[in-house]
């Protein structure tokens, strides 16, 4: 019964989704997947089960062959490229496994990057902190990047520090959706737990929905909900048998 209201409030809603690259077979077949607003979701599955493809589709970089992708009520699968880019810029913060940062920009400039491309996030950062710079400083402090590190070149930071800078960048301007694609796979176990805790608590404050992707199912305990993509993706479960 409560499912109906969650449709209205879904941060991400996929239905009857089919996707394949070029003329190849479908690599993704998801009949229904919904992630509610401010839910913290763990998406796991072995490599090759379609995680990155799914994220690219949520990010609006790929469009499905069939079915629809809705982000915060916007049916992005029916939009033109520029409109999908706009949705991504305004509403989604990304963190990737590695190479998240632009090498020639300072830590602060990296964090402020989304504000260059999204008026909405720039405005929200100004509303909450007075300016994009101040928002960046607050987020970096919250994520344990202190003042001495902020002026450094990003290439001088450790991998763990780089990932936290990337997290601050994803969070700036309080996007409704944070998508983290294996952000902890290059961190050791202690750092991994610390990073996830920091990320989730910041997302909690910003009331953001989190989709955290990993092949490591042991991290699932940190999240509200875990989704096994191998089971959800019709193609992956079939091809697994072969």
């Amino acid at each position: 019964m409560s499912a109906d209201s969650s449709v209205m409030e879904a941060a991400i809603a996929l239905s009857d989704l089919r996707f394949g690259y070029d003329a190849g077979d479908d690599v993704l077949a998801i009949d229904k997947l919904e992630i509610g607003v401010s839910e913290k979701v763990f998406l796991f599955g072995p490599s090759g089960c379609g995680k990155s493809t799914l994220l690219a589709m949520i990010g609006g970089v790929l469009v499905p062959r069939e079915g629809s992708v809705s982000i915060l009520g916007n049916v992005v699968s029916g939009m033109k490229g520029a409109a999908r880019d706009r949705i991504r810029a305004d509403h989604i913060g990304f963190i990737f496994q590695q190479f998240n940062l632009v090498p020639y920009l300072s830590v602060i400039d990296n964090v402020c990057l989304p504000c260059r491309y999204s008026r909405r996030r720039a405005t929200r950062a100004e509303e909450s902190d007075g300016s994009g710079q101040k928002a960046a400083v607050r987020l970096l402090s919250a994520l344990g990047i202190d003042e001495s590190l902020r002026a450094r070149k990003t290439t001088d930071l450790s991998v763990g520090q780089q990932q936290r800078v990337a997290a601050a960048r994803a969070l700036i301007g309080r996007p409704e959706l944070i998508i983290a694609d294996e952000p902890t796979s290059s961190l050791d176990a202690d750092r991994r737990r610390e990073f996830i805790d920091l990320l989730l608590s910041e997302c909690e404050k910003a009331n953001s929905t989190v989709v955290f992707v990993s092949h490591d199912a042991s991290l699932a305990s940190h999240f509200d909900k875990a989704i096994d993509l191998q089971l959800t993706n019709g193609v992956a479960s079939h091809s697994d048998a072969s």
Partner: protein
Amino acid sequence: MLHNFVSTISLVFKSLMNRRGTAALTVASIAVSAALLSVVDRVRTDAQTSFANTISGTDLIVGARSGDLNLLLYSVFRIGNPTNNFSWESYRLIKDLPMVDWMIPISLGDAHRGYRVLGTDLGYFQHYQYADNRSLSFSDGAAFASATDAVIGAEVADELAYTVGQQIVVSHGVTETSFLTHDENPFTVTGILARTGTPVDRTVHISLAGMDLIHSDGTETPGLDDEPGEITAGLIGLKSKTSIFPLQRNINEYEPEALSAVIPGVALQQLWGLISVAETALYGVSAMVVLAGVLGLLATLLVSLNERRREMSVLRSVGARPGHIFVMLVSEAAMLALSGALIGLFLVQLGILLIRQYALSEFGIQLSIGLRAFDLYVLAGILVITVFVSVVPAWRAYRNSLADGLTVRL
């Protein structure tokens, strides 16, 4: 809009600074090509102006029969050597014609320490004109009053540190190291001419009598008004321009002696015609160098694209649209080209400051400082061509960014 533009430019600038090694080389190659094109044009126009400014107010130049250009070159520019002299009788005859206002005799063939010695009369200082009908003037002293007096050009005075009263000797022939030196006939500098920017500055003027003195056995000193046997050339000013062509025809058809009369402007046109092939070739080569510079820039950009795919996909993930990537690449190319061209043009100005004295003394070319219309064409041309060709890497980056999406698998 403005905010976006500034933001893109600052991003591109930081990106370029991150690759400052290759960026500097690219800028340097553009700078060199812009400088070359600018220099070629400047030297060409300045040389033409300098040549055209050398003689003014002279309607005809008379000499022994030879090519028009040859006569102009040796009589006015002191380039090359006269083929022959002509007789003083013919000179008198022409000078006394009713349509002739004035005529300056010129006798060449000797040198003083590498500077040509020109024998003439006082009419030279009165009638010879350069640039826009400017007459010669003395910066010190006065015209020669005796057969052993000399008047030197500004550069002779500067280079050899001569002042009025200086004793000089004249050697036969025009090379600096002549074996035959007329030691027994020293001349005294009585006047120094103000700088003209023409070959006059590099000339030692003596009287025709002085000229004879050099070539006589030295037993008697001739008077200033003694008549020489022959002279090299004569510059003619006419009372009316309408008699230029009739007189020229008459001189060319003069029976007793083979003479040529040339109109300076016409001979100069011949000169331009002669060197225009070389000029065109120089322009062509310079344009090719510019093209090579721009293609180098294109190659550098294309090579950089692969190593920057990650950077591009990061920008995409934070909201940059493929259009942003396209604009970034084009702005990057434009920034490289603009700074290269500006640096090149600046170097030209700097170079001219450094060599203008040398160019003036060595080639008689007065190089001008300051930007000209042509420089702006060079700047605009390089910028337009670069933006045009940068569409290739920009388009490729655009395609890459669409294909790579948010994560690059390298």
